[in-house]
């Protein structure tokens, strides 16, 4: 395989946590595009500023699925402020690292979380995350 993965990546890939959809999610974020082969959709249930549940669906490679799974695990139970601090590096580190060509998948996972929070804030306050744009769209892909 062109991208040898850690055991943790393979575990989250073969047994992804929090796969699926929820009814009437409070925030939905969809990032990525079919051109580069990864699409992530994240759904959040938010109560009193705390993420009480997170679900995802991902079209993509092993790393895309594993980072989605790990990111949902990392934000569950966190406040919005804490979840916004989640970085792609933290997701990658929690998976015991990713091959360099797959780091963009962790960026996508970070984006998906922020996009879902952005959607939640727009719905509840009428204003999204100030000045935020998905990094996966603004940064050059480093494959």
């Amino acid at each position, binding site marked *: 395989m*062109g991208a040898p993965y850690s055991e943790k990546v393979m575990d989250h890939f073969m047994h992804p946590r929090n796969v699926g959809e929820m009814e009437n999610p409070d925030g939905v974020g969809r990032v990525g595009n079919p051109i580069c*082969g990864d699409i992530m959709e994240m759904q959040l249930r938010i109560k009193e500023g705390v993420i009480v549940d997170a679900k995802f669906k991902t079209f993509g*490679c092993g790393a895309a699925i594993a980072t989605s799974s790990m990111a949902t695990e990392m934000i569950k139970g966190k406040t919005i402020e804490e979840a916004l601090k989640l970085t792609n590096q933290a997701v990658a580190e929690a998976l015991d690292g990713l091959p360099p060509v797959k780091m963009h998948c962790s960026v996508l996972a970070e984006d998906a979380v922020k996009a879902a929070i952005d959607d939640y804030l727009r719905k509840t306050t009428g204003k999204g995350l100030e000045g935020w744009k998905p990094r996966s769209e603004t940064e050059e892909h480093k494959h």
Partner: protein
Amino acid sequence: MRRVYLDYAATTPTHPKVVEAMIPYFSDKFGNPSSLHHFGQEAKAAIEQAREKVARLIGAKPEEVVFTSGGTEADNFALEGVAFAHEARGRHIITSAIEHHAVLECAEFLKKRGFQITYLPVDKYGLVDLAKVAEAITDKTILVSIMHANNEVGTIQPIAEIAKVIKARSQALGIRIYFHTDAVQTVGHLPLKVEELGVDLLSMSAHKLYGPKGVGALYIRKGTKITRFLHGGEQENGRRSSTENVPGIVGFGVAAEIAEQEMEKENKRLMELRDQLIKGILENIPDSQLNGHPGLRLPNNVNVSIKYVEGESMLLNLDMQGIAASTGSACSSGSLEPSHVLLALGLSHELAHGSLRFTLGRYTSEEDIATVLKVLPEIVYKLRAMSPLTKGGK
């Protein structure tokens, strides 16, 4: 775990008889073929014997076969060798959009050095249009390079017809245009004679036909002016310097001999298994499609796209269950774009990312095919259930 290897287009296991034939040339018969003494001459004789075998397989004269380090070198040698030998007459080269990177990147290299390259498009099956070949030829054209069969989708090009078009156009223009074909996927797999194909140069690779890795050959029609590829010795008639890979070349010869004997029977067997696998996938997995030509296709190639799922994730799941396949998805190659071949056939990015290639070979059994047909639909169902592109899994 029972392992099912279905990636024979990537490489094949070396045939036991090939290994056996090679072994003495590592130790007892280790001589340098350029040496005048017994040790050298023994090795030299072995190389010439192998050359005859490889030449016979493709219907060439032994002196028209130059051994190389593999298919990539053969392609590079053909393109650069002809380009540099004939650039005084013209600097135009025609190739296709679906060539192997060994040809495409070589063409790009020449482009940077002032050559003009025409990339012919292909139709949805991967076939080059004869009329477009004729249209592309100008009085500055020196070389046309079109692969015999595509390594990803298995489509077999009408090489003999293309050769006729090139001949007619070059006669009308009063020029000599060389015709090269990358036959890495067909030599030893399809009956193939250089005279019938009408080519001037043809690339081969031993490890695709149960020979060893690190050895290949370029057929160069007698009378073809070509710039030497490696400098530093008079090996291979001064066309390719470097001490010969004697064990590898000996192995290539034996592999060619075995291929010639077994090809017909083996092809019949492989085509049956191939069609079983294609039929099984298309029938058992909704929203799946065959890529490449349904009929003009390598006997061992199955390439499918499965909607809503990505190739690498299918590949990893298959590998976990012992099945080795390949994909045209960008994710496994480390590049941004998915397979240039699938895109050239007109597939959407999504379908190109959702492609799987199974290539069958000598040790593929009906049981292997049944295993894939049992395992793959389950994997697809599981991945579709987590895909945002579909509802509910099916």
